């Protein structure tokens, strides 16, 4: 498991469009935006309109917080002070299982894995877990591998 993230050195500043998303993680809910007019889902929630139908009547969809790793990087040299103690850590892009749409679109999210680099691979299933920070208003989502898969690819260099 990577080292700890020092959340005292990271100030998350929710805005008008994201404050409800951060309220969601406080309640251990992983939300994505969903259009009330056409049902399209998207992430991150900074975007206030539906890119499919332009409706600005945006609601929330509570996902199960489960998905598949689409890609990842292994951060070895830290750039954000809060992460100095965490290197090497894996950031992954994850395709959410319950956000696949009929036209082939799938909502992808990103986050820090709880797993070591050697455990992570493209194609593996994972699920969200929640990590409290020093700021009671901010609960951080992290991701952990929760199973195996037949078709996986790992960077081994």
């Amino acid at each position, binding site marked *: 498991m990577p080292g700890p993230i020092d959340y005292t050195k990271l*100030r998350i500043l*929710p805005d008008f469009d994201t404050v409800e998303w951060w309220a969601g993680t406080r309640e251990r809910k992983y939300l994505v935006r969903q259009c009330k007019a056409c049902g399209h889902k998207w992430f991150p929630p900074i975007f206030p309109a539906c890119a499919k139908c332009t409706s600005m009547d945006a609601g929330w969809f509570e996902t199960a917080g489960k998905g598949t790793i689409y890609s990842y990087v292994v951060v070895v040299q830290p750039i954000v002070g809060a992460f100095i103690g965490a290197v090497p850590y894996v950031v992954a892009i994850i395709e959410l299982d319950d956000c696949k749409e009929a036209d082939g679109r799938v*909502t992808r999210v990103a986050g820090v894995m709880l797993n070591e680099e050697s455990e992570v691979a493209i194609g593996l299933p994972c699920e969200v877990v929640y990590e409290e920070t020093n700021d009671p208003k901010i609960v*951080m989502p992290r991701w952990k591998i929760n199973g195996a898969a037949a078709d996986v690819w790992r960077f081994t260099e």
Partner: protein
Amino acid sequence: MGALTDKYCIVGVGETPHMRPSNRTTLSMACEAITKALADAGLKPGDVDGMTSYQAGDSTTSPHVATALGMRLNYAVDILGGGSSGEALVANAIGLIEAGYCETMVIFRSMNGRSGRRMGGQTPGGPIPVANAEGDAQFNLGWGWTTPAQRFGMSAMRYLRDTGCTTKAFAEIAVAHRYHATLNPKAIHRSPITIEDHQRSRWIVKPFRLLDCCQETDVSVAIIVTSRERAYDLRHPPVFIMGGYARTLTDSPQWNYSRESLHYVAGNYGWKRSFGMAGISHKDVDFVSCYDAFTFTTLIQLEANGFCGRGEAGEFVKGGRLQIDHELPSNLSGGHLSEGYTHGVQMVIENVRQLRHRADDACPGWAEGKHTYDRKAGCRQLRKADICYGMGWGWENMASCLVLRGMAA
């Protein structure tokens, strides 16, 4: 052919040295780059009546420069932008001059990109001590994923998985651009490197090693655009603007990872336009430039602009193809990887010098276009440099292009 193809020219180029640190203001550096570009063109400050620049809240502005250099401008607009903005501002200049807003225009970028604001957001001394994550950054910086290397690494990793390419292809690009830097007295890094040197260099963010990453520097760069009619009266043979595309975007361009493929980058949407406007095909291109913030960005731009098929770039660059005297020389000044980092404009400057046949290399007669083509003696002028295809990159989802030709084409 485009309606304005070959009607406008780049007539002057100039830059400060690549410094780290400069110990100068961005205004001071901009004045130096612009006066050098004016001298290169054979123009006086009063001959330029339009000025434009791009920046990221990290630089001086056109009114400051105009005040410092005693210029009275008819057009002065400074935009926010990063990589791929230089080529886009050349496109703007063509339209502005054609429409009559001004007659001769200087485009500049000035940045303390090493000692001041670094593109990764880190402070000059190292990691950001306390970071504020607001706007987009709530959903990237908030999970320690923020720098260009970290960001582009995601599409690079998926590219390796999807295509079977390995990082030895990245190494080919590092080696080629470094070789060109050995022929450039202005470059920060002039010692040759090998594929093995690349493979042994330390990890920054997997799949990128140190030698996959560019060399941030403090620098200013300037280029001057005017009409063909004026260009013929100036100091150097004109370099004609054949075509391009300007800050072309993919769908969902801004911090949204749900596009079908992360490595189907913006150039894919632009290259038919640029080749069509220029009236040429890939086989007419003598050399290219690529925005090499990272080795991978060169690789994927070649593919996105149709120089090879989708997924084939790793094979395409093997065997030194991008090196001088090979099939498709790329970034002849050494580029961001080895010369220094200018947010893209140095590629345009080098391409202009090559197309004039006046690369500023070790040849005593370079200023008169006399070259030996002896690489061991430090000559970096191409023998045949008639048409150049220059590719700019903002990030995966934003790209520009500038197709230039010299007098011979």
